[in-house]
């Protein structure tokens, strides 16, 4: 029983981690007024680049770095078209997703030639003493990226609430025109928040391909990027909100695996729907209470 509970906890945390990382990036860009469905494509891109990087360099750490940097570059396409060309954010996001699926499938076939090579993934890092704790000890046997994600939560919360930078982001999202008048560069603020969210989505994708499994498969993100968007809405656009929301999703996904193993008689295809259904229920239940920034989705055209 204790073992079951322990493995359930571990799988919850591991499932929640990519949503948490991507969600923390979205705390910045969403608060700056960006609605980015291209997160799905960013994560897919990061998942491939992480694997390819790890395959080339033989080091998971370098793989992660390559994923972060290349996805950040990739996100510049989104930033350029939405900010500099005033293009519709949803449309550019959709294009990014199509583009990412084309690029990743093409590169995957070229780099790995249809094989699944052994790559080094994120190793688990045991924290002394804490790992010996009953039941929750397993939470201290996770990978570095996983700890990093959780440590980032208070950091992001602090930056958003207590620093000048965070207030600028909030101001730009709430009223770009007024922010511009008082000398905040709307363009620059939106640019760096998108790049940051691109970098973190890349890491989130890399965690899926190198932390949860040890390979890249086409379409492996299967909606986790969209779930990250749901997480930010559900979490009320704050870092700690994102933490709770991604843990709820983590529980949903861990539950799904657990039920599959348990042989409940429910077909696995139906169980696979569970996280998506949870997302639906969550989005319906929460939306009346939280509200995004006023300028969400609107391009800002300087006069």
């Amino acid at each position, binding site marked *: 029983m204790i073992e079951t509970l322990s493995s359930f906890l571990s799988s919850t945390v591991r499932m929640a981690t990519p949503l948490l990382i991507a969600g923390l990036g979205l705390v910045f860009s969403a608060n700056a007024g960006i*609605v980015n*469905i291209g997160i799905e494509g960013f994560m897919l891109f990061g998942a491939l680049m992480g694997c390819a990087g790890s395959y080339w360099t033989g080091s998971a750490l370098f793989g992660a770095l390559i994923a972060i940097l290349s996805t950040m570059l990739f996100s510049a*396409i989104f930033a350029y*078209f939405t900010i500099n*060309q*005033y*293009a*519709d954010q*949803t*449309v*550019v996001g*959709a*294009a*990014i*997703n*199509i*583009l*990412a*699926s*084309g*690029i990743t*499938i*093409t590169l995957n*076939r*070229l780099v790995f030639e249809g094989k699944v090579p052994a790559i080094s993934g994120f190793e688990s890092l045991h924290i002394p003493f804490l790992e010996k704790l009953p039941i929750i000890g397993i939470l201290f046997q996770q990978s570095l990226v996983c700890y990093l994600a959780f440590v980032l939560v208070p950091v992001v919360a602090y930056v958003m609430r207590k620093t000048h930078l965070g207030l600028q982001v909030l101001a730009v999202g709430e009223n770009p025109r007024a922010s511009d008048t008082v000398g905040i560069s709307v363009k620059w603020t939106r640019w760096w928040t998108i790049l940051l969210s691109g970098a973190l989505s890349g890491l989130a994708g890399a965690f899926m391909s190198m932390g949860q499994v040890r390979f890249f498969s086409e379409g492996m993100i*299967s*909606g986790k990027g*969209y779930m990250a*968007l*749901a997480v930010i*809405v559900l979490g009320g656009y704050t870092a700690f909100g994102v933490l709770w929301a991604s843990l709820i999703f983590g529980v949903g996904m861990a539950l799904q695996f657990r039920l599959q193993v348990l042989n409940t008689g429910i*077909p696995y*295809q*139906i169980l*696979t*729907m569970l996280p*998506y*259904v949870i*997302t*639906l229920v969550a*989005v*319906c*239940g929460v*939306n*009346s209470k939280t509200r995004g920034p006023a300028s969400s989705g609107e391009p800002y*055209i*300087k006069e």
Partner: protein
Amino acid sequence: MEDNKAGKVRSFLIAAYYPIVSILASFVIAGIIMQVLGFSPYEAFKGLISGSLGNKRAWGETLNKAVPIALTGLSYAIAKRCGVINLGAEGQVYAGALCAVLVGTEIDFLPAPLHILLTLIVAFIGGALYGAIPAILKNRFGASELITTIMFNYIALYFVHFMIAGPIKDYSSTSNFAQSKAMLVTARLPRILPGTRLHAGLFVAVAALLFFQFILFHTTRGYEMRVIGLNQNAGEYAGINVHKNRILSMFIAGGFAGLGGACELMGVQLRIMENAFNGLGFDGIAVALLGGNTTGGIAASSILFGALSSGANKMQMKSGVPTATVYILQGLVILFVIGKRLFDIRRMKRTAMGGAVK
């Protein structure tokens, strides 16, 4: 008279300028990417074009591919005209196809024309009802359709996986892959051009395009939808029922996508296999954007996208470029169409002259 004609040509050229330049630019960039990856772009594009437009048979394939994506394009467009972003055509396609397969395999006493008609109607209704749910959730709970429509895509997909692995599985097949029973002969769309595989789904797509044009521009409902799409507040002040129109637009949108799934099923696939209809919905979004959510634009751009996907196989054969590279082309086309200011000649001139650019 002459002037009028010249004016028409001129306005057509202006309307066609951005799509054409965007497509050219996408081909150039995709060509550069192929070159970098070590392929011959010349061979690739030659294969792509000859495989899609090279002969009568290729044209048949191109139009067959264009049919479902014209329908999913209409699905995105009619919702968008009413201010709803429908990213759920993917799932609505499956909902329609699933309904079509039930009618097309279980009802065995109807003559062909009636059976086809009934299958299409049921597919429309199935897709439409599935499409209406996100609209209802938006009205009732304020849930963003950006997220809900996508979640419904996955739910439909896995439900179909469940159905073809059990309740509607073809147990007589020796295939290792789960698949539904095949459509009865009376529920298949007939071929309409000798020497090609072109099927009667083309008529369904044309009818849907005409219906789209009619309802949006020749009915009061369509007028109301367009007002809401342009400015929801103005619509409300004018006393238009936003909630009702939103549901109606998503109902029709889902119906269009459902028809798309049915046409692909009844004319090409003949049975549902895992993931066989993936991508039709998102291709439709691209087609609608490229066509500016207009009837003629959607017709033309669905043929373009049909050509891209029907030529992809020959491209891979002739040059080794993976078929998925076509997605890169599609993504680029959308980006350049939406970022068309890049190609604004007057703006370029101003920049070149060193003038202030807004």
